[in-house]
């Protein structure tokens, strides 16, 4: 068994869809957390935001660099109730196409604020598709024990979210 990337939890959305996904009771024994996700939203738009939070505070900010197939941009949110580093493929994009995204959270049990990095691609057989890099900040000294993902309308069947623990050498 690899201990470099230890599988912890996986949620696969069933036939009824899901408005949100949660990883709870996350073990506090790893160094970092890593999420890998393949998901699609039932929203009628081609692309919609997915929100990510660890609690109900307004302690979230993120900075993004994105491309949409023809142009590039950089954006920022602050004092928000969630991170928004990911676009989901919506029903307006190519059918059966799911966003491919990661989230990396180092030192998630530390008493410092949490710095987060993510990359995401939302493909489409059209000139418009999204690639985005994001830096996030959770301005809280609390350890992270829950991660919530909120869809714009609902995650469709077969969306899959996987959580891993990462151990550094010596643990």
């Amino acid at each position, binding site marked *: 068994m*690899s201990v*470099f*990337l230890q*599988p*912890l*939890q*996986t949620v696969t959305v069933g036939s009824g869809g899901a408005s949100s996904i949660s990883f709870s009771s996350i073990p506090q024994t790893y160094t970092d957390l890593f999420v*890998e*996700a*393949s998901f699609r939203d039932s929203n009628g738009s081609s692309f919609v935001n997915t929100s990510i939070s660890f609690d109900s505070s307004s302690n979230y900010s993120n900075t993004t*660099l*994105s*491309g*949409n*197939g*023809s*142009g*590039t941009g950089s954006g920022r949110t602050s004092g928000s109730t969630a991170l928004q580093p990911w676009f989901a493929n919506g029903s307006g994009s*190519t*059918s*059966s*196409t*799911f*966003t*491919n*995204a*990661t989230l990396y959270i180092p030192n998630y049990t530390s008493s410092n604020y949490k710095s987060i990095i993510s*990359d*995401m*691609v*939302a*493909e*489409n*057989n*059209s*000139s*418009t*598709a*999204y*690639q*985005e*890099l994001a830096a996030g900040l959770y301005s809280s000294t609390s350890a992270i024990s829950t991660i919530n993902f909120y869809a714009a309308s609902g995650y469709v*069947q*077969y969306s*899959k979210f*996987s*959580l891993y623990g990462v151990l550094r050498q010596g643990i």
Partner: protein
Amino acid sequence: MYPIASYTSNSTFNVTFSSIPQNFTHLQLRIFCRVNNGSSTGNIYFNFNTDNGTNYASHELYGNGSSAYSTSSTSTAYPILAYQVAGTGATNNIYSTCIVDILDYTNTNKYKTIRQLTGNDQNGSGVVTLGSGLWQNTSAINGITLLPDGSAFAANSVVSLYGITTA
């Protein structure tokens, strides 16, 4: 993360992963390369399951040291796996690095989306790319063919495939 197969050679070579095990959740390619095209840079294209039809799309967000750009290709038989890696016209010993993630590769209800992060710095020039590729087919992936510009990888490139499990 488990090693599945790896290619390298002290001469030029090509890469096809076939009979990929179906017991992982995700796949990851880790590539250290230059392509055998005689130019300073070149692309690597891909296909799955030997499907060379126009069933693919790819998009890239990239920066070249001075500006950021975004580009696309749709309904193509030549989707980009890695954008503007080092070619054999680059300074000797310069290779590029690329990591490609293919999620849920056995799921027969999804088209397959890849995500690639590629870096190519050549001490005065270079490109860094976050890119994506789409295969409009719900079949499980059992084969991956890499198609580098110049029709081969240069000597001492390394292309490795890993399997990733989930809980």
